[in-house]
């Protein structure tokens, strides 16, 4: 990230010919840094969480853990929080790079705080999915693939669906803008679009105008991701002691 920041500053100052760094360029740097950070979060979270239970199963340590007085909920939340703690440390370690952006101005600390909060929410949700797949699958590799698949769905496929749904709805209404709740939903659950709207509120107005739905993107994102995380954690807790379920 440091190489990227200094590279960016070098390029902007040398190409502009002015020799100084303008606030609007600082904002662009902030935006790019945020997307790099988002990429890192989405890339590392599955790697840290998708093996948390299945690795224990593969190493034959899970049965011992299950006979301790820890409840299933405590084990799952413990696994999740240890992964999240590591990721938070990574985010905090990246803050000095952000401070460089503050040095040049153009960004408010509140904006950064808000973005960090959404990073944490995204981490918790993707992490919960990692733990859920790790609990319900026997092999870590399968769990990894499933978690990365979910992550790709949330970041890439949803954006694709947003565009497709928007186009289809527009075609159905004879080429004029019409209300498209589904397109708004796909936009609301995409982390990339959310970060765009947080960085530049006009993006939200643009999405709202396209979909003809006036529902805050951040709120839709929060509701959906909180529900997803809660469902994934519930499934993990239920499936952790699967052999203790009534059988035959």
């Amino acid at each position, binding site marked *: 990230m440091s190489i990227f920041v200094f590279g960016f500053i070098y390029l902007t100052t040398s190409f502009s010919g002015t020799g100084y760094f303008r606030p609007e360029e600082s904002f662009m740097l902030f935006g790019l840094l945020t997307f790099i950070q988002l990429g890192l979060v989405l890339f590392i979270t599955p790697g840290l969480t998708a093996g948390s239970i299945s690795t224990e199963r593969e190493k034959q340590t899970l049965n*011992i853990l*299950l006979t301790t007085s820890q409840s299933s909920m405590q084990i799952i939340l413990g696994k999740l929080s240890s992964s999240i703690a590591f990721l938070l440390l990574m985010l905090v370690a990246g803050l000095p790079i952000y401070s460089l952006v503050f040095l040049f101005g153009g960004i408010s600390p509140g904006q950064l705080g808000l973005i960090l909060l959404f990073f944490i929410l995204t981490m918790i949700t993707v992490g919960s999915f990692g733990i859920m797949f790790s609990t319900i699958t026997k092999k870590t590799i399968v769990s990894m693939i499933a978690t990365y698949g979910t992550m790709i769905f949330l970041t890439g496929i949803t954006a694709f669906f947003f565009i497709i749904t928007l186009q289809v709805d527009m075609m159905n209404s004879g080429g004029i803008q019409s209300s498209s709740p589904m397109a708004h939903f796909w936009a609301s659950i995409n982390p990339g679009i959310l970060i765009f709207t947080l960085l530049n509120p006009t993006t939200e107005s643009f999405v709202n105008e396209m979909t003809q739905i006036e529902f805050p993107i951040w709120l839709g994102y929060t509701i959906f991701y909180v529900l997803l995380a809660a469902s994934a954690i519930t499934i993990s807790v239920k499936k952790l002691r699967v052999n203790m379920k009534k059988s035959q």
Partner: protein
Amino acid sequence: MIEIKGLTKKYGSLYALNDLNLTLSEGTVFGFVGANGAGKSTTFSILATLLQPTSGDAFINGKSVKTEPHEVRKQIGYMPDFFGVYDQLKADEYLDFYGASYGISGVKRAELIPQLLELVNLTSKRYEYVDLLSRGMKQRLCLARALIHDPQVLILDEPASGLDPRARVEMRDILKQLKEMGKTILISSHILPELAGMCDEIGVIDGGKLIAHGSVSDIQAQLKGERLITVKLKGLTDRAALFFEEDPFVTGLEQNSEKHAITFKYRGTEDDQMRLLKHALQENLSILSFAEQETNLEDVFMEITKGVDSI
């Protein structure tokens, strides 16, 4: 106290356990004997709350494994037949982690860990990485781990499997110490002589059914009263072999010409055996010794499970 009532575990049409009933009083050391796949580990997994029975129930100090698993877990120390360790932990950190999992305070854990390591003779390995310990040491460390919350009941699934003779003796000594501490211990093994010296009671399981239960001597008595007798002679004679073969209670007579010995199974009473010896001496058969061979658990197990079909 452990009470097992009609415990059954079915996988499709296969019975891993079939109507197992067993009651063990406090402080008993119970040896569970059975071939691989007989149902020992299934029983232990159910008792350790890792597996739900198809029917029946088991109670540990009155707590049901089906309806109160959380309470049962506080009262048992479980050591599975196969287990792994966290490779990035040292021996004391390993115990500390599990101590914390049982909700033991940091101060108490700091007190307990050296005591437990001493009990399992691993004091010198306190700061060694668990992954680098030998198999025997890992087994002992796992036993220390099972004891960290001072459970009254210990469920040890094949604790000595894969150990060399020295490690096996060390494990046996530790278990004797635990027996003296008044713990109720359930221990399984398919290596039968391992259990003979330390168990108060033995249960033989085959095809998911408990086919014999009692003290070691009780089970040996179940061998249909048959005794194995070895007679050593000063020079083996056919006359001696013929004499013993003529006795109606003697079967399966074998001669060992190298050792000058005759071995046979004897089905008569002790009085009949006395008479046989008296007659043999009167016949001047040059007998050096006339001894009843002690039947080991291996023989008992083979005899008891003979003809029992796996279901």
